[in-house]
């Protein structure tokens, strides 16, 4: 078995991301192996295996298959189309299309690529998906081929045609794999430069041979490098797991948690590292499968090697770290009411909100979003909860956050009204933290605690700062709103006063006019009286006085 220090070297050299890549395939396709043709393939594409045709035989099928899968893996985020494939393969387009469709249907190609509308079934699978922290079962670690390393420049260029098939060898990721070594395959890597197809097959066989040699030597650790895709039911050669052993392993995991020495004792036939490797590989249910699209996206958006979560096989510490974080997740699971579907489920998976998945690369963005969405009270509460949770983990940090905590507790009273929402948010914030932790858990065991502490401190500080800022902004906003409100009320009052004044003016005018009219009335009356008096004085005849009324009366009648 590979000694742990060597693996550490590998991990530390992760600044060269191309040394190791992993690809995602659905768990249902775990039958796939580079150097073998599985029963599923024989059944689905019988035309290649019934010997009825010259142009279709198993060898041709394998070449088609390997080429198509490699072509896809040059750029896993992009959807590979049939038209692209067929130009570089000789053969009946109908048969090629059937191979292409077969691979597409099983997710061996185009699995991480954006799903087109017609793939209904796959969309359904994705919907019922669960994100798993750390080591998703659907994700396999594949050491990149030496050919790929050799052609690194062109591969980085993007369009680059095609990395010649590293297909050859066979899966033994957990073995003594080391980058850059292995003269035989190195040679073949040179041979396999793009464009030199004639030599491809030579390289092919060479690689296969060397992998077989390796198998025969029982992984003596001579450093020959195999470059291959790891299979779900990965065949370890001499270290094949029987069902009984797997059962024992699961039992041991249930009993001893993450104490791998005890587990290895329990299983007896296998050593510690084997047990870990096996547990990582176990398919813990189909529902893990669909999440991989999201994972892929994360991987693609982050070119930094640190964000690529490589499975570190050799070091137990790393795994234990992951296990312990997962334990925490289990507690959380109860809160979030995740239904554990698999009976054999060890504490390795956890449901996550999609928004969290998106956020793993930009924590602050996520926090800011949450803060805007939830309002200052909740943000403050969340920050408070996060800080207190951190402090519980490590009381030393307590002092560091005294200020933040004070800030947060100011608002804590209002928090109780929106308790539910707030707690959910807290969970999310903690999730984010955990994601971060899981990302960061690079295995430098001595320094780990210190770095983790520092990172937690940084995260908590940033959370607190964000919350405080949100609160500040909200307060400012509130003040502004009050100010505006006051001015509005003021204006309204002024308006009413103006109206009152106006009405008063109107009233006075009316009164004046009334008085005028009264006066006029009196004067008219007076005038009338004087006229009457004058007429009496002048001695006007009575009949004439009545002449007009009488004539009027007649006309009316």
């Amino acid at each position, binding site marked *: 078995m590979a000694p742990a220090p060597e693996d550490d070297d590998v991990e530390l050299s992760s600044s060269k991301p191309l040394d190791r890549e992993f690809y995602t395939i659905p768990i249902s396709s775990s039958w796939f192996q580079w150097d073998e043709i599985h029963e599923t393939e024989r059944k689905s594409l019988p035309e290649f295996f*019934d*010997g*009825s*045709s*010259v*142009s*279709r*035989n198993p060898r*041709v099928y394998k*070449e*088609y298959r390997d*080429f198509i899968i490699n072509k896809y893996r040059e750029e896993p985020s992009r959807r590979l*189309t*049939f*038209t*692209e494939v*067929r*130009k*570089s*393969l*000789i*053969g*009946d*387009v*109908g*048969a090629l*299309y059937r191979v292409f469709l077969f691979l597409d249907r099983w997710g061996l190609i185009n699995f991480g690529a954006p799903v087109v509308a017609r793939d209904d079934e796959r969309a359904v699978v994705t919907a019922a998906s669960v994100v798993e922290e750390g080591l998703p079962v659907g994700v396999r670690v594949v050491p990149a081929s030496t050919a790929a390393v050799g052609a690194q420049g062109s591969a980085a260029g993007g369009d680059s*045609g095609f990395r010649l098939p590293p297909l050859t060898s066979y899966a033994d990721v957990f073995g003594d794999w080391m980058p850059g070594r292995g003269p035989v395959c190195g040679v073949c890597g040179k041979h396999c430069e*793009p*464009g030199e*197809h*004639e030599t*491809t*097959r030579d390289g092919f066989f060479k690689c296969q041979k060397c992998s077989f040699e390796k198998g025969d030597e029982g992984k003596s650790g001579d450093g020959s490098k195999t470059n291959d895709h790891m299979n779900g039911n990965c065949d370890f050669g001499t270290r094949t797991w029987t069902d009984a052993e797997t059962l024992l392993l699961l039992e041991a995991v249930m009993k001893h948690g993450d104490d791998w020495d005890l587990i290895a004792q329990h299983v007896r036939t296998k050593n510690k590292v084997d047990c870990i490797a096996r547990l990582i590989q176990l398919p813990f249910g189909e529902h893990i499968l669909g999440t991989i699209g999201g994972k892929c996206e994360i991987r693609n958006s982050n070119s930094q090697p640190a964000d690529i979560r490589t499975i570190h096989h050799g070091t137990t510490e790393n795994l234990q770290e992951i296990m312990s974080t997962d334990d925490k997740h289990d507690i959380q699971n109860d809160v979030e009411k995740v239904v554990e579907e698999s009976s054999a489920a060890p504490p390795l998976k956890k449901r996550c909100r999609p928004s969290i998945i998106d956020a793993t690369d930009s924590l602050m963005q996520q926090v800011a979003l949450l803060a805007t969405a939830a309002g200052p009270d909740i943000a403050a509460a969340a920050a408070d909860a996060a800080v207190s949770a951190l402090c519980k983990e490590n009381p030393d940090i307590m002092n560091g956050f005294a200020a933040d905590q004070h800030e947060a507790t100011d608002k804590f009273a209002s928090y109780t009204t929106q308790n539910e929402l707030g707690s959910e948010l807290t969970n999310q914030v903690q999730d984010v933290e955990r994601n971060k932790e899981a990302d960061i858990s690079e295995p430098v065991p001595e320094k780990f605690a210190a770095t983790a502490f520092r990172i937690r401190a940084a995260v908590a500080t940033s959370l607190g700062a964000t919350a405080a800022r949100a609160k500040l902004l909200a307060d400012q906003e509130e003040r502004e709103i009050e100010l505006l409100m006051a001015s509005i009320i003021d204006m309204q009052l002024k308006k009413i006063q103006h109206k009152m004044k106006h009405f008063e003016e109107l009233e006075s005018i009316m009164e004046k006019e009334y008085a005028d009219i009264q006066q006029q009335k009196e004067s008219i009356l007076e005038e009338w009286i004087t006229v009457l008096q004058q007429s009496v004085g002048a001695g006007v005849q009575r009949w004439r006085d009545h002449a007009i009324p009488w004539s009027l009366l007649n006309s009316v009648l």
Partner: protein
Amino acid sequence: MKSLPPSASKGPVKFRMPTAENLVPIRLDIEIDGQRFRDAFSWNPDDPDSEVANFAKRTVKDLKLPPSFMTQIAQSIQTQLAEFRSFEGQEMQTKEKIVPLKLDLRVNNTVIRDQFLWDVSNFESDPEEFARTLCTDLDIIDPEVGPAIAVAIREQLYEIATQSVSSARESRLAKKGRRGAESITNSKMANGALDLMKIFGGKGSVLRKRKEWYLYEPIVDLLSNEEVEALDAREERTARLKKKLDDQEDSFQTPYSR
């Protein structure tokens, strides 16, 4: 003749289109009084002949063509169907044969050029499905392109199928008598077809050489309306020229035939 696996030759089969659906490609190119009607589609030869007249009527009505087109369309379809049926009942060679098919089409504003290998002996092939995939892969929006590609494939398959009828006849004759004729038919057969043993047999790789990729890669061009008009005008001119030449030839020939 190279030895094949015993099950490789399926034995003679009655003539049909070497595709899953036995559909005949029909091409119409009719010109009456300066008005030209061109179309291509596939037709199920098992449909009753009354359908042809119905189809012609429908087409003329839908495209608002002058009624004189109706009989012409029906006649053209009937002739092509009759030609297809003249092969029916005869035996055709079904030896495995992979041939390169070429596409060079212009449909409305889309120009597509392509080349690919097709297994003529596979009676489950589906040109329509292939065309559909091609169009979705290349994001061709024009709905007329797909059917045009399918018909173009069918036309070439049809031609190959008719050739295989004659080669089947020849090989039958060869079996009856002279042995030497066999090599002749084989060399004729191999015309354009791939040497299967060489490629798929022992050692050859089915990965195409990188420098040959461009040959088998579809090329799609979208023309502007002006370009389409220019192309149309040119095509019409050459067609007219050709017609004139044909007429001249006829006039030359008539004195001799008398």
